[in-house]
């Protein structure tokens, strides 16, 4: 549970909380480990063209002489069936994963939050009923299934993949914020704000929303991992980035054909995906520690 604070109180706490947050976060070595991996992956993905050994392998490139070579010092993760260095492609694949995560969450969280706030605040009106029934429809099916269905109907590329997942994802945030809002909007500080004459927008954004920040942030970091899994699942089936580019999901799918003899083509991308999701999950766990109210 978050401590409930009014607007005035929130202003004054800002900077003090940051160093305290770091202290709580760093208490768990696993979270710090996750954070390090997290930054490492981001760094590597951003500077991919400069640090990978064979940046040209990321796109259209064929070299059948070097095809399907096992991991070695020249090709760290081996080569795939067309002769491209898997290590390079994995790092470029991280780019797609990160882009996917960032875009999907940026697109789905703000509308989700806003709709959740509105639905929770205007309880017992047709606004709430409409919004929440729509949310219910989306939540009635696991997100992967719905995203899959939508993505299958559009032509397969990265943009559509992101759109399909975002289309489905906002509902979870809407519901989260909704449940928090309905309990918060009866708190004293909201009544006080109304008495002073604060506008509804002010109340929603400045009084209620800051108290929802903690669970939203935690869910966000865990969701980054989930979104990547969903994205990889979609690409695995072929609904994501198209060749010659490929992200981690398609690499695993292509590599799976070569099992068991050319195992490296599937195993390394799989390990890579596990690593990034692990990093996000660990950071998310650490954030939960930061926001948890400690018992005496």
């Amino acid at each position, binding site marked *: 549970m978050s401590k409930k604070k009014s607007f005035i109180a929130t202003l004054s706490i800002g900077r003090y909380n940051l160093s305290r947050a770091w202290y709580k976060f760093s208490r768990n070595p*696993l979270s710090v480990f996750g954070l390090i991996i997290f930054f490492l992956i981001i760094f590597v993905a951003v500077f991919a063209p400069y640090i990978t050994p064979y940046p040209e392998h990321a796109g259209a490139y064929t070299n059948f002489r070097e095809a399907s070579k096992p991991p070695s010092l020249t090709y760290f993760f081996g080569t795939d069936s067309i002769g491209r260095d898997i290590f390079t492609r994995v790092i470029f694949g991280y780019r797609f994963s990160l882009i996917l995560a960032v875009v999907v969450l940026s697109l789905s969280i703000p509308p989700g939050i806003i709709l959740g706030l509105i639905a929770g605040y205007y309880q017992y009106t047709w606004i709430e009923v409409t919004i929440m*029934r729509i949310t*219910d*429809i989306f939540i*009635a*099916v*696991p*997100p*992967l*299934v*719905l995203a*899959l*269905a*939508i993505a*299958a*109907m*559009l*032509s397969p590329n990265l943009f559509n993949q992101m759109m399909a997942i975002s289309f489905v994802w906002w509902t979870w945030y809407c519901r989260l914020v909704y449940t928090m809002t309905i309990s918060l909007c009866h708190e004293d500080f909201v009544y006080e704000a109304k008495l002073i004459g604060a506008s509804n927008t002010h109340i929603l954004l400045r009084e209620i929303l800051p108290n929802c920040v903690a669970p939203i942030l935690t869910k966000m970091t865990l969701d980054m*991992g989930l979104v990547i*899994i969903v994205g*990889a*699942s979609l690409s*695995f*089936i*072929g*609904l994501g980035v198209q060749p010659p580019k490929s992200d981690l999901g398609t690499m*695993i799918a292509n590599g*799976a054909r070569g*099992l*068991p003899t050319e*195992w490296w083509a*599937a*195993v390394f991308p*799989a390990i890579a*995906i*596990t*690593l990034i*999701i*692990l990093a996000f*999950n*660990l950071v998310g766990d650490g954030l939960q520690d930061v926001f948890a109210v400690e018992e005496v």
Partner: protein
Amino acid sequence: MLSASPYTRELINNKMGKYIILRLLQTVFVLFCLSLLIFFIARVMPGDPARVALGPLATREQVQELREEMHLDKPFFVQYYFWFISVLQGDLGKSLYTRRPVTTDLKEFIPATLELMIFSFLISLIIGQVMGVFAGYFRDSWFDNLFRVFSYIGIATPAFAIAIFFLLIFSYILNFAPAVGRLSLGLKPPPQISGLLILDSLFARQFNTAFEAFKHVLLPATSLAVANIAQEGRITRSSIIANLQKDYIIAHIVYGIPMRSIIFKYLLKPSLIPTVSIMGLDFACLIANAFLVETIFMWPGFSRYGVIAMLNKDLNAIIAVVLIIGVAYSLMNVIVDIIVSFLDPRIRLQRGGI
């Protein structure tokens, strides 16, 4: 409260019964809207499904004929109306891909996935909960640390990656379990009663077949179960750790109740509540991940059928698949809610039960 009135009237009078009925009605309504949504998306998407179904070599007249047959030229609500009527009669349309009625396809494929999910659920229940309880009770022991590492990795690895790892290790390297399909070639499947191969084989006393079927289901079911073991086990573990600190456990100890009774009765029940609440959501993940695991293991299941339908823009099949998943998921949530109400009297009382 327990008068001599008929059972249904008693159920409706009972507040708990009212709650259940309300939930079920809500579910039906939501599913109805879901069907509308999916129908809408399916019809609105670009491309001509009739053309896709018949292929590029078909003549224009053939395509037009199919379009009329599928009511594709009519307005949206008319199409929906036709579809709805046929669903009520049990006809889910024809699959454009397999060219059979969708219901036939479903009857063939659902038992396979059902078998997979039942096994997966059993595995995650037995292994996951037991490990969770031990890890929680023996906190910080070597077992607990091992479990925690395992659970982090288990949650982070996507199910299809796990499937690949398992395939590699157990099937190819260790040759422990077969890789493909439900039954090896050359073995005759038993007469179909429930569609669950293992059960049917046991009924028909074909024990060898049953064993083979069991070996085949082992790897896919375990791949699916890993994520659930990790997540549910973790929740059980932290639940047990939290409840061990609770004052009532100390009170039980002080009043002389033996440790054995405390662990298996007084500690277990409250600790299972958060885990059960999550099982509904996890069941959804099971269905979702089954899509991919079935593809890898070439398990002829409902989810794989769904994926192929989506890739081929097989309208009727897609709608049917999404609806069935919706039904299963919603039902599961209602069941989980009821179970939690039984376990936790605080929630039950809140909902007006006894």
